[in-house]
Each structure stands twice: as structure tokens, then as C-alpha cells.
């Protein structure tokens, strides 16, 4: 899959002209910054619309979507190039299966990502799920454990199914901000991020509507209920993140397996040994000598009956 021939990004032509203009503008911006390749990793729970988002982004049916069943456990990379610029999008299987983290899928993702550079992570979730629970935190934790904390510097949260009418007549903006706030909080908790871990601004949140019945504006661009054309907005945010100054994540063995616990503190072993000698072995030895001194001996042993020591 990785050796797959890089095809011409023809899907871009299917976008509305206004979007196309915007995209070319952004790609040009990237080229100016000397970025010729952009690798986007898409992760998230199962059934949140990861593959659809990928397809929307590429502009063609690059990856199969499986709406009612869990997809395969293999990640897929789609590569498209246009005018000397290569876009790689890695679509991954859902990390949750049956209420647990799918170790198998996680391992597959890890081995798939080995020796690749990830520029942007798209963490995908639905806008229309109302609750943030432990499972979200678990997923975030699994991602952090696999790719390290630094990945979140190059991450953006994508909320799909953006075209909805919020419950209880809540204003759309308020619902969106509440939802994203809760999700970001869970994300911070799950990733164990602290304020100073984050370089620059917080993780951006982008709304996406992959449905074909998505509203369009006068320029035939797909728009969100707020009126923003979302594809160009998404690409714009991706560009921003790609250019936010933090380093891309190079996935190597060390990163996947975490820091090798066998190497931790190795250099201190001589000190440990010296400490053990003086503060464990020696005190026990003294205690033994104390025991010998205190040992209660039978009277015949203490009574010195030797003629040599007795007065004649």
C-alpha cells in the first residue's frame, strides 16, 4: 500500500471552482514554505466518518466506506500529487471495538506508520454525539502512548456530521463550542497534556459534513450551517497546523515502543550497587553481629570452668 503508485490528484477538479482556487492558493502557500509533501493521519473511534472525511478531502472515492460494520483492521494510505505537491492521507481503522481498545488495530497502525513522517493528525469524532466518556479518553491515551505527546501539537479535531439541528433549540454556535470544549478537555486528560506542553494555541476544531445532502452556497461550495465552506476551511486549518512551527512526527521504533525501560537508570547502577552495599548489606551484617552478642547462652557455656582461669 505504501508502495502504491502516486496518482495525479484529479479529485481536486471535482470541487467547486471557488474551493479549487482556495486550495491552490493554500498549496502555493505550502510550497513557498518549502513543504512539498503533506502526510495526514486520520484517527478516531469506529464509525465516526474517518473514511468519508478522507474521501471528501481527496475529492474521490479513494477508500471504501463501510457504514454499518466495522471496517478491516488495516490502515490505508492514499497518495495524490498535483503540481509537484504530494498529499498523503492515511486512513486508519476504528480504534474501538466492543467497548475496548482494539489492540490488534492499534498494533497494525503502529507497524504501518513505522518509518513514516506524520505532519498532521486529524482526530475525528462526531459533532452529534452528546456525551464525552471514558472511551474517548482511552482512545486519546492509546494514540498518545503510541505516537507520543508531541503529536498533539500537530493535531486538529475534526467533528463530522456538522449539519445538524442542535437539541432543545440550543443555538448552533453554543452547541458547537460546548461540544468541542468537552472533547478538548477529554483529549487533554487522556493525553495527559498540561498547559505548557502545548506550543502555541490550543488544538483547533474543524467541522465537517461529508453527506451528499450538504448545503451548498452560491459558488456550489459545501457549507456548514454557519455558512463557512468547510473543505477549504479544513485545508486552511491543516495548512496552518502544518506550518505552526512544531516538528513533524517521525515514527520510528523508539516512538512506537515508548522509551525503553531497560535503559532507564542504567548509568546509575554502580551508584545503586554502592548504596545497597552500604545501606542494606552492611546494616544487616551489623544486626547479625548484634544478634551474636545478644544470644542467650546456657549457663554452662558462660560459666568459665577452666582451671587455667580459676584461682588455685
Amino acid at each position, binding site marked *: 500500500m505504501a508502495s502504491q503508485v502516486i496518482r495525479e490528484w484529479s479529485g481536486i477538479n471535482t470541487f467547486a471552482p471557488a474551493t479549487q482556487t482556495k486550495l491552490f492558493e493554500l498549496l502555493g502557500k505550502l510550497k513557498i514554505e518549502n513543504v512539498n509533501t503533506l502526510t495526514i493521519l486520520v484517527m478516531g473511534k469506529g464509525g465516526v466518518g474517518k473514511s468519508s472525511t478522507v474521501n471528501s478531502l481527496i475529492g474521490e472515492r479513494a477508500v471504501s466506506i463501510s457504514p454499518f460494520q466495522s471496517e478491516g483492521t488495516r490502515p490505508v494510505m492514499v497518495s495524490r500529487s498535483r503540481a509537484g505537491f504530494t498529499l498523503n492521507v492515511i486512513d486508519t481503522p476504528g480504534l474501538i471495538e*466492543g467497548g475496548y481498545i482494539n489492540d*490488534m488495530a492499534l*498494533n497494525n497502525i503502529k507497524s504501518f506508520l513505522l518509518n513514516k513522517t506524520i505532519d498532521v493528525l486529524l482526530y475525528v469524532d462526531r459533532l452529534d454525539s452528546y456525551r464525552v466518556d471514558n472511551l474517548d479518553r482511552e482512545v486519546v491515551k492509546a494514540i498518545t502512548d503510541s505516537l507520543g505527546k508531541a503529536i498533539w501539537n500537530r493535531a486538529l479535531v475534526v467533528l463530522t456530521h456538522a449539519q445538524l439541528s442542535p437539541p432543545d433549540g440550543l443555538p448552533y454556535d453554543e452547541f458547537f463550542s460546548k461540544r468541542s470544549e468537552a472533547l478538548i478537555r477529554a483529549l487533554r486528560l487522556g493525553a495527559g497534556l498540561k498547559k505548557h506542553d502545548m506550543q502555541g494555541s490550543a488544538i483547533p476544531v474543524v467541522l465537517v459534513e461529508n453527506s451528499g445532502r450538504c448545503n451548498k452556497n452560491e459558488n456550489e461550495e459545501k457549507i456548514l450551517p454557519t455558512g463557512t465552506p468547510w473543505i477549504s476551511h479544513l485545508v486552511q486549518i491543516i495548512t496552518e497546523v502544518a506550518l505552526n512551527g512544531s516538528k513533524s512526527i517521525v515514527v520510528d521504533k523508539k516512538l512506537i515502543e*515508548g522509551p*525503553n*525501560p*531497560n*535503559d*532507564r*537508570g*542504567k548509568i*546509575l*547502577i554502580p551508584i*545503586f*550497587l554502592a548504596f*545497597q552495599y552500604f545501606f*542494606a*548489606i552492611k546494616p*544487616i*551484617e551489623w*544486626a*547479625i*553481629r548484634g*544478634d*551474636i552478642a545478644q*544470644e542467650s547462652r*546456657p*549457663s*554452662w*557455656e558462660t*560459666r568459665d*570452668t*577452666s*582451671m*587455667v582461669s*580459676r*584461682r*588455685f
Partner: protein
Amino acid sequence: MPVFASAPAHLRTPIRLPSSFTSRPELPNISATSSAPQRSSSRKCQLSYSSSSSAPSQNPEPLKLEALSPILKNLPKVIATSSAIVIVFNLGSHLFSCNGAGGGGGGGGNGFGGGGGGGGGDGGSFWRRFFAPAAMADESQNQEWDSHGLPANIVVQLNKLSGFKKYRVSDIFFLDRRRGVIVGPEDSFFEMVSLRPDGVYTKAQLQKELETLATCGMFEKVDMEGKTNPDGSIGVTISFTESTWQSADKFRCINVGLLPQTKPIEMDPDMTEKEKLEYFKNQEKDYKRRIDRARPCLLPMPVYNEVLQMLRDQGKVSARLLQRIRDRVQKWYHDEGYACAQVVNFGNLNTKEVVCEVVEGDITQLVIQFQDKLGNVVEGNTQIPVVKRELPRQLRPSYVFNIEAGKQALRNINSLALFSNIEVNPRPDEKVDGGIIVEIKLKELEQKTAEVSTEWSIVPGRGGYPTLASLQPGGTVTFEHRNIKGLNRSILGSVTTSNFVNPQDDLAFKLEYVHPYLDGVYNPRNRTLRVSCFNSRKLSPVFTGGPGVDEVPPIWVDRAGAKANITENFTRQSKFTYGLVMEEITTRDESSHICPNGQRVLPSGGVTVDGPPTTLSGTGIDRMAFLQANITRDNTKFVNGTIVGQRNVFQVDQGLGVGSNFPFFNRHQLTLTRFFQLKEVEEGAGKPPPPVLVLHGHYGGCVGDLPSYDAFTLGGPYSVRGYNMGEIGAARNILELAAELRIPVRGTHVYAFAEHGNDLGSSKDVKGNPTEVYRRMGKGSSYGCGVKLGLVRAEYAVDHNSGTGALFFRFGERF
């Protein structure tokens, strides 16, 4: 049958009176034949006693030392001392019973018969001798006896009896003439008479008895008369007047052992008065010198005071009082284990000071001899210093022989495991009077032994029927070469397999060389070098499923290698061991194939082999060399059968960076166990043991390379009870805490416990995180209670993680 006997025959020793120098009597000769004369058991110190003289006012009184009775002289063999102590320790059984002085007569005798060895023989004769009087009386009961042929109920003087008749004595009365009462058998004098009711005696025997009584010095006057009974037997009445001397207010106890005997000058009956006076004066002077040269006794102040109190209470010094003093003094000695000590004489009577002469039993010589199977003295293979260093100082010459020191020597020598039979045997020194030679007789074990034990295992074949193909010959071959060069060095090898036809399946071998006395046999430092080759196969507890996880495919860890270590023993239980271990570790799956990774069962039911790595190298085979040190402090002791005290163990394995992937690590563990005695109890056999609270903590940690087979596991009968081995987790650092309360109940104990094991969050620091892969918690507690049934612990433990309890039966102790 091991028997330990100590019987003071001299209980029956008459006190020789009156004071003055008397040469110490020879240690009595003991006959090995059953025809020993009745009185042979008591010391013969025949002093001619002038019963005609008035109350002894003179000091010293004239006396004559009579030769030992000719019968005794003709006795064939001198065998043991008057206080014969024979310690026989037979390795056959590790019992150590003690027959106290005069305790359990016949039973003890029988026990000795089975004692085996030369010591047993000695003891046998000794017992026979000791019980000779009773035995004689028994024998004579069966004899014919003659009627006295006189009218009934008349009093007959002893000399009026017929010399040809055998008289049956129906009963014996003692008449204290001074007090005018008949004394009962509880009186101390009673033991001095060897006549027994219903015995049959001739006139000569009766006369001899009377003579003995008259000469023993206890009585001023003794008479014996008979009273005829209607049935032809006679009743004997012994009437006596006790000797008394003037009151004393000082008491002195001296050790006259090893003092050269002063030769008595025969008193010429034709001496003039002046010569006689001169003679007495000389004797008095001699005695004074003797006292001065004598050494002070071991007798402690309290006993001195006790005796002084006795003297003060009594007023006049009487024979009975002296007997009581003798008993008191001797009792102290024997209670303290100085079994060879005895009061031999009271001197300086009729002065203000009573001098008690004691032979304490000074050791003059220590003899170590080896015997062959037949009991002949042979030149042993074992070097003498090896035995000597095990002996307590108190058995060396110039010390007073103590039976406890003898027992200690016995135990120490036994712990060498070189001898099949050990005897520690004090015998009188014939050259030095009052000296004791301690003889240690040893029978060596065979140096080279080889053993083959076989077993056939029939494995059920198809259909449950054993087939010929499934018959497997298995067993163990062991060889041992002990006591090389006589320095207790040994080589031991063993090979075990369950199938000799196909030994590569599971061949367990061990070859060990042990080299004690590394610093030289004369050096008190006790270090032992051990070099061994070994292999072992164990099921890894790291690859175990947590609760609710079905069967995790097992991983076997095979270790083969060599190690050399030095053990320094500080005490019997505390020691320090350090050495080098080199080993090859191979991890295998169920079918004995080498596997580099653990397996796991997928939710779909499939099995993958991408589990946690089993080895450091990732190939399934690791080689490593590391230093190992272990220091154990153990001051636990048994209080009425329950263990009390504390045990601390620290162990460190220091990797050297030599081996696959250059393993460099520091793996350490500290174990602290304390047994608190919750109630003070009286110590002694049969007393109830105290309740005990056991607190236990175990910390294990590792820095550096940690292969999974070296990870610390939690759970199991020796970790956290109520869980399976490794059920809680496998981690880099662990902490276990346990508390157990033991309450004694009817000779055993019941206990309640609570335990906790925690991985301290370090499970993830083990490569591959086997704790998480096999869905284990990483921490867990349990509690429960149980009862000890002999060697088996039956306990009900509740596992706190799943909240379920189960009943377990385990061998051995948890702590």
C-alpha cells in the same frame, strides 16, 4: 535407638566419716557380669569403725583404710566410672531422648540394649550394675528358703542364727534409738541398706550387711536382730544411733579433683600414746595442706547460703544433715549438667567449719577415635581438626566436664553429616585421680556412594489404556564422594529423567563440589565454597492470565549453567553468600519449541505469537553472567514449638554486561519478616506456645535490562495467597505486604491473614507489558484464615480482585 543416660551411682555412696584425710576411694569397679555382688554398686570405702568408742570427741579419729573387698578385685573388667555417662547418638533416627538420673529404671535399661555400638555395651553393664541390688533380690525370691525352725514371735540375735540356713526376710524395720521411733522407708538411711523385704539371705550375708552399716560412718552404733514369724520367715529390725558432731557455722566446698593422693601411713597398733598424738597431728596438718591446695568449687553463692542455712537450722551436725548437704550440693551439680561431679567426703568435722570435698570431674584429656563397623579402633579418614573445631571449648582439657557441652558437641559433629554413629563418652582417667577423659568415638560413613532409583511411569494411551509405547522408564542416578581428603569436601552429582530411553526430553542434572573451611581448618572463620552445574525447568508465572482470562499458553523457562559461590556462616541461621552465576536461559512453548515471544489468545479464538518478548535477545535464548549476593539475618527461635524472632534477607543480582545483548542490570530484593510474640509464656516441653503476629514485607526492584523471566511476579502461595502464581502481575518493582495472626489451639494453631501485592505502576516497564497483555490488575489483596494440620496448611483465602474465595491445601510455611 539413641539413648542418653546419666545416672549417678554414687547416690548410694555412704559418706565416709569421720573427718580427716582419707584417700579418695578408687572409682568403683563395675562388673560386666550379672553375678556382681549385691553391694558392688556402692562405693566401698571401708573404714574400720570403732563402735566401742564413746561419742567421737577427738578429731581426727583413728581410722584404717581397708582394702577393697577381694570379690571386687577379682572382677574381670573395669568398664565405666561410678557416674557413668554414655552419650550414644545413633543417626538412624534423629530423636534425642534423655534418661535422667535414676529415671525409669527398667525401661532405660532396655533402651540401652538397642543403643548399639560400644557405648551401648558399656551402658548395659552400667544399668545392670545400677539395678543389681534389686535384681539380686528378685533372683533370690525364686530360691528355696528354709524355715527358721524356731518358735514364733521370739527375738533372735543375729549371731544366734544358723549359718547353714537361708532365711527369708519378711520385712525390715529401722529403729532410731535416739528418737526411739521406727523410721519409714522415706528416711534417708533406708537407702543404705541393700536388704529387701521378701529376700532370702544367709547369716553371712546379714552379718556382712551389718558390718557395712557399721563401717560406713553414719552410725555410732548399729545392731540387727531377727524376729521369728509363724510362717518360718523372719522380720529384721535394725536399730541404730546416728553419728553427730558439734555444730558448725561455716561451710566450704572445695574441688579435690586431680589432687595427688596422700598415702596413708599405716597406724601401728603398737603405737604409744605420744606417737598416736603425733600421728593425729600430722594427719591434721596434712588435711589443712590439702584444703589449701584444693581449688574453689563452681558452687554458686545461693547454694552456699542455702547450705549455711541448713547448718544453722540444725544446730548439731548429724549424719543425716551431711547426707542432706551432700544431696543438695550434688543436685546443683547435676542440674547444671556437671554429671561427673560428686561429693566424696566431708572433712574437718567437729570444727566450726564443714568442708565438703567435691570431685567435679576435670577433663584431663580429649580423645577422638574412629571405629570401623565392628567397633574396632581404626585410623579414620577424617582429619582431627575438622572434628575438633566443632567441639565447644568446655570439652577441652582443664575444663569441668559438662553433659550439656557433650550434647552440644554431639549436635555439632552430627551436623557435619560425616558419621553414622557418634559417641561422646567420659571415662575416668586411670593415671590422674578424679580426672575425666572425654572420648569421642566416631564411625565414618562410606565415602563414596552411588544410588540408582528407577520408576516406571505408565502414561494413559489412546482410550485411556496404557500401551507399551507409553511405558517410560524414568528415575534418578546419584553419586556422591564425601569427605575428600578428610576435610569434608564433597562432590555430588545427580541426573534425573522421566524417560531414560529418550533423555533429551527432560534431563535434569546437578553436579556440585563443596569445599568447606576455605580459610583453613584452624581458622574460626567459617566459609564454604560451592561450585555447581545445574539445569532446571520451570513454568514461567509471567505468562499467566489474569482473572477471567482463559488459558494462556504456558512458557517454560529452562536454565542451565554454572555457579560458584562462597557462603560465610555467621550463626547457624545467619549467613552471607556471594558468587558468580553464568547461565543460559531458553524459553520454550508447550511443545518444547523455542519461542521468542509469548503467545496470546485473540478474542476471535486464534493464537498469535506476537506477545511480550520472553528473552532479552529476542531469540528465545539468552546467555548472561551476573554476580549474586545474599545476606540473611535470622535470629528466629522456637518458643514451645512456635517460631519467634525476625528474619531479614537482602539479595542482589548484579549483571556484568556479559552475555546476549550485554545485559547490565541491578536486580535487588529485600524481605523483612518479624514474628512478634504476643504473650509471655513459660518455656518448657508440653507448655502451650504463645500467640504470634507475623508481619512481612517484600520489596523487589530492578534497574537496567530486565528479561521477562527475571521480572517479579505477584500472586501465589509464597507471594499473595488466594491467587495463582503470577495472577496479579509481573513487574519491574513490586511490594508485598502481609500480616498473619497465629493463635495456638490444641497442639496446632489457627491463623488469619491479610496480604497485598502491588506492582507500583511498574508493569509497563517490563518489555511487552505482560501484565496488561494478559489482562492482569497489577495489584491485589487477599485475606483469609486457615489451620495448620501437621505439615499441611489448610486455608480459605478470598481474592479481593474478584471477591471469590477458595480452599487451599499447601505444604510448608508461607514465611
